[in-house]
């Protein structure tokens, strides 16, 4: 099997940089071959007996179906481009060899995770991915912030893994096997396990039905931690501390996608209320992350929050059953988000050179003191522009196809739901609008307007290799790669490939056309609005806040379209909301996490106190009691002869009395 060879090759790549590039390249080619062979073809399954414990025989092997083939191609493609990019990006770094080793380890574990067929082995690679991300985030371990972020990321992943392990336990206990095909295949054990009167029966074992939902919940919990969904997303923004190429590979394309991949892999297990939970978390995460992104000033933080919100989108899609739309969005998102990160990396990289050249200290990641780079870095600018258009979902881009398919699905799904749930699609639309707004804000702040720094030293174009990789990615962002007709979603060939699931897109024509039109129209308006707000005048964030208030009056005065007014009313509460949510997020969630940390530490200190003083105390107490008893009896030996005699006779006397008179 070519597949095994390439998995082996990527482990081989542990050594120097040249070799790792080579290995990634050939793994890309191999996965392409596999992709062509497997796509829409018959899934291949290859197993080897791993070990048997008690009555369970655990086998480890490789399962290739559409899902894994697609993912393998995606992962190796993005990885190859990032490798190419990081040749240039990391050139100056002293510990280059170590960087390449970690990167190859990460690619190996990611590819293996996507391919493997046994849940336990999947869990092993799942944690290995978490571990390698810990190493990569904490790569510049001299910087304390990076190490803290790495630790935080790993702990969050561990929490998720706990859920995953609990899920595995439930499944193993119920079905006796962890093999994905046996469990989740179409004829698999899950589908023919029925639930009657609260008991989940499958073959011999039966367990109360609550455990089925719990199993689904456990796996979902694992996915939340890995894909940084609402409660456990705090680690992703901090994870930006690692090198940009790392965050682009890990936090944009592959690792966070692993969560979605897991859900896709074991989709049948999720029953109704878990799907509902997914929808809720998905929508909350996407909305919240989008609003926070609006306010952020750090280039990479914005991208991080946009990743979270896009992942929220995918989770939402999963929840509403649009299984294939989610995966489609996953693939497109991987490419343009990776491109966004790489461009950001290029910008930061160049600004660092500029900083050394100009010898002035400024945070080269803060977009406030950038601007007007358009004319200095044209190619990066064009690439960034394409990527942001894809992210915003403007027509003629891949983003448009995948995001709008999710929107369509959500509208279909909402029509059948009642009450609060029907709000979900509108929320989704809102989020996508917010996305367009903040990405436009980013573009204008960074590339348009005038260069805020005083010195006029020209910022030179990023080196050639970087440009090549950027261009490659741009290719993927544009629509032709995915479907020949830019507007119609159904017949994109990837969508058909993934549509292994039941959900069929209903053909309500009206809704089908109206929604994308509305969305595109509004997004154009937003971009125009953003351009006015950000590119014309100078000044940093806080000043713009004041200016904008007065400016809004001005804006109002200039605008003659009614919906512009509608947008303005909408912009201010949104801004307010985002600020509140970011404060909320930092206070509550981080507070919660730190609080938990502190309480555990306190508990630890308390238990050592108990352990040292009480238990040790008891033991020493026993020791001292026996010593004191010893002392008391010692005094009897007073050394006086007559006392001995007295005691002897006393003893004799008592003996007599006792004997005689009893």
């Amino acid at each position: 099997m070519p597949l095994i060879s390439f998995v082996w090759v990527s482990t081989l790549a542990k050594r120097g940089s040249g070799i790792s590039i080579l290995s990634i390249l050939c793994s890309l080619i191999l996965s392409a071959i596999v992709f062509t062979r497997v796509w829409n073809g018959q899934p291949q399954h290859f197993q080897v007996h791993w070990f048997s414990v008690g009555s369970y025989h655990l086998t480890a092997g490789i399962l290739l179906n559409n899902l894994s083939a697609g993912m393998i191609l995606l992962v190796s493609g993005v990885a190859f481009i990032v490798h190419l990019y990081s040749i240039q990006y990391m050139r100056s770094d002293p510990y280059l060899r170590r960087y390449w080793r970690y990167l190859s380890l990460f690619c190996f574990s990611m590819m293996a995770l996507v391919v493997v067929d046994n849940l336990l082995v999947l869990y092993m690679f799942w944690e290995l991915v978490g571990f390698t991300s810990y190493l990569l985030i904490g790569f510049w371990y001299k910087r304390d912030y990076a190490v803290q972020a790495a630790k935080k990321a790993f702990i969050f992943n561990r929490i998720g893994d706990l859920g995953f392990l609990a899920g595995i336990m439930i499944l193993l206990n119920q079905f006796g096997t962890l093999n994905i095909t046996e469990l989740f295949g179409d004829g698999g054990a899950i589908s023919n396990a029925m639930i009657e009167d609260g008991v989940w029966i499958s073959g011999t074992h039966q367990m109360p039905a609550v455990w089925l939902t719990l199993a689904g919940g456990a796996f979902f919990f694992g996915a939340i931690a890995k894909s940084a969904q609402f409660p456990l997303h705090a680690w992703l923004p901090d994870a930006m501390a690692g090198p940009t190429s790392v965050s682009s590979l890990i936090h944009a394309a592959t690792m966070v996608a692993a969560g979605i991949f897991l859900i896709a892999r074991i989709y049948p297990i999720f029953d109704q209320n878990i799907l509902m939970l997914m929808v809720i978390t998905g929508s909350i995460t996407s909305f919240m992350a989008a609003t926070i992104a609006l306010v952020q000033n750090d280039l990479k933080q914005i991208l991080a929050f946009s990743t979270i919100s896009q992942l929220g989108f995918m989770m939402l899609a999963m929840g509403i059953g649009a299984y294939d739309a989610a995966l489609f969005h996953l693939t497109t998102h991987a490419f343009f988000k990776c491109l966004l990160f790489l461009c950001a990396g290029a910008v930061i990289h160049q600004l660092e050179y500029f900083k050394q050249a100009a010898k002035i200290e400024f945070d080269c990641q803060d977009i406030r003191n950038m601007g007007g780079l358009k004319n200095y870095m044209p190619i990066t600018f064009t690439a960034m522009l394409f990527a942001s258009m894809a992210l915003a979902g403007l027509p003629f881009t891949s983003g448009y196809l995948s995001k709008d398919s999710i929107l369509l699905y959500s509208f279909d799904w909402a029509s059948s739901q009642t009450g609060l749930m029907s709000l979900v699609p509108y929320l989704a639309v809102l989020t996508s609008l917010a996305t367009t707004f903040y990405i436009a804000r980013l573009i204008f702040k960074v590339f348009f307007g005038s260069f805020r720094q005083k010195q006029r030293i020209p910022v030179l174009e990023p080196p050639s290799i970087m440009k090549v990789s950027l261009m490659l990615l741009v290719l993927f962002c544009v629509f032709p790669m995915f479907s020949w007709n830019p507007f119609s979603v159904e017949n994109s060939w990837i969508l058909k490939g993934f549509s292994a699931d039941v959900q069929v897109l209903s053909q309500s024509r009206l809704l089908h056309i109206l929604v994308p039109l509305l969305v595109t129209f509004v997004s154009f308006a937003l971009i125009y609005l953003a351009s006015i707000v950000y590119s014309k005048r100078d000044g940093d964030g806080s000043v713009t806040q004041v200016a904008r208030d007065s400016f809004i009056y001005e804006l109002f005065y200039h605008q003659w379209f009614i919906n512009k007014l509608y947008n303005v009313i909408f912009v201010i509460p949104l801004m307010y909301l985002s600020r509140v949510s970011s404060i909320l997020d930092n206070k509550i969630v981080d507070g919660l996490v730190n609080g938990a940390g502190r309480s555990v530490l306190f508990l630890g200190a308390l238990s050592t106190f108990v352990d040292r003083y009480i238990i040790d105390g008891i033991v020493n107490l026993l020791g001292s009691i026996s010593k004191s008893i010893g002392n008391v009896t010692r005094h009897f030996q007073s050394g006086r002869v007559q006392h001995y005699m007295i005691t002897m006779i006393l003893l004799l006397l008592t003996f007599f009395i006792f004997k005689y008179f009893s």
Partner: protein
Amino acid sequence: MIPVTHFMIISAILFCIGLYAAISKRNAIMVLIGIEFMINAAILNFVAFGAYDKEVNGGQIVALFAIVLAAAGVAVALAIILNVYKYYKTIDPDKIHNLRD
């Protein structure tokens, strides 16, 4: 005929007097005398019962031996007391308590 119980009563009283002397006297020699009293009380008992044993007179023989042994005992005891006196300059048992640990 003097009944045996009288003899026993006398020896008991004598024994207790000896005991009292041995316990509470401050002088080692008085303690020794107390011990002698106790021994004599025992001998008295032996003799009292020995009378009834015609052929063998076991009681009296034991009494004889007892007297002899008591004598030897006293000799050794006095030697010890002399040495104690030489060492401690006093023979008050309460003062001699080096055995205390």
